[in-house]
């Protein structure tokens, strides 16, 4: 069963919660998905981090990682902001993708950060920064459907 299908099934079997954190870990071959859920309701959920690791990613060079990042940039068009590659660290073999442009309120900037690393991991986190303050990670709110679609797209990009 694909990771997307497994996640749909897992979420359907979980009781709604709004406090604490529950971790969901799923595997499909060499693909491993971890989702740190901080809230789950009948329609939507919130996660602090969504990560997918793959042996295939671990073998890629910087150009290969860039291609994965471009592929993800084209696919992930349904989040709050579009995501695109911002920096590529050849030394650490990591491509940093972020919301482009980030979302700006009067005194706050929020954005997604998706790292594509040669350690074999794709990880998505949402950050926010108030004026004059350091950035902090915040839960990303999505519908159940979007979360499952995200899992599917990450798996497809890493496969």
């Amino acid at each position, binding site marked *: 069963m694909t990771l997307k299908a497994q996640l749909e099934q897992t979420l359907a079997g979980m009781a709604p919660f709004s406090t604490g954190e529950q971790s969901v870990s799923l595997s499909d071959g060499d693909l491993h998905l971890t989702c740190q859920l901080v809230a789950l309701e009948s329609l939507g959920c919130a996660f602090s981090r969504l990560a997918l690791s793959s042996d295939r990613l671990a073998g890629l060079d910087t150009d290969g990682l860039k291609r994965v990042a471009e592929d993800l940039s084209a696919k992930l068009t349904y989040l709050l902001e579009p995501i695109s590659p911002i*920096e590529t660290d*050849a030394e650490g073999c990591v491509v940093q993708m972020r919301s482009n442009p980030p979302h700006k309120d009067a005194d706050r900037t929020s954005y997604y950060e998706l790292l594509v690393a040669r350690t074999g991991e794709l990880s998505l986190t949402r950050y926010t920064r108030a004026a004059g303050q350091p950035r902090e990670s915040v839960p990303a709110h999505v519908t159940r459907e979007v979360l499952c679609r995200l899992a599917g797209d990450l798996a497809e990009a890493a496969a």
Partner: protein
Amino acid sequence: MRIEHDLSRFKQIVRGKIRQNLRKYVTHGEMIGRKGRDLVSIPIPQLDIPHFRYGKNGSGGVGQGDGEVGTPVGSPGDDEGGAGAAGSDPGRHILEVEVSLEELAVILGEELELPRIEPKGNDTIEREKARYTSIRKSGPESLRHFKRTYMEALRRQISSNTYVPERPRVVPIREDKRYRAWTEVSLPQANAAIIYMMDVSGSMTDDQKEIVRTAAFWLDAWLKSQYKGVERRYIIHDAAAKEVDEHTFYHTRESGGTRISSAYRVAADMIERVFPPTDWNIYVFQFSDGDNWGEDNEKSLDLLRGDILPHVNLFCYGQVESPYGSGEYIRSLEHSFDEAESKMIAVEIENKDGIYACLKKFLGTGV
């Protein structure tokens, strides 16, 4: 004498206007580079250019045309009024005034209340300079000394009896030619080296680079006015750093990650090789969005502490806010160094309006 007085008064007015709007000129970089290296052209919209004023030519005059004895001559303004046609003249132009960089630096210094810099250490470095003070028999044609050449030719013609005073023709031959030659003289100079470092990683946008360019222009102007010789060097970096020329410095965009330590390594090496700290007054200005890759912070701070700060007059770090506002490097600097005790100054530049305060803080130490 009168016109000189007027000119000096006009210059005073221009200076006053520039001073009045200095903050605007500092934050808007549009006049930078418009007149080359030594002059800048500043648009001043609200200034009356001196001009002749014509008086009403009175009530007198000579009448012409038909008229009876006793008919009064018309005076100006007697015409009937009425709606006029639309004007065809162009609107009022903005006056652009040329100001020398030196003068601009003086205004900047006065307005920001900047102290004069006290050069450190050996401020009398001997520098070789070529002076054309002697004459040789060989050399490039571009350096031919015409007067000496013709004198030699005349001397030769007189001594060989070929000169005819009634028909004075002097024709130089090859042996008559004389050329200017130079000798090298040593000139004492107070020298300063400015090292600019800029992050050109993917997260630095064109707007941020424009802020850096504008700030660097004013820093240059001030430091040039304080030292006789200023050497400028430019380093750009993303995950790797390199020395580049000025144009490349302002127009490069890379997509690499940010590793500030790479730039520090190049700067430290440059200081060691090219600018011995005992002879040079070294100023380092670094600009970045501060979005350094996490594990690089410690490495950068070590290099700064060990290889850069001990050798420089001043190290200034300007953190230009990126669209993500995620730069944390300035906090690491503030946490690691005490500004009062070290030669390090760190400033956050939110936008173009922040340049003014940044310059004041960077240059206000007088070091």
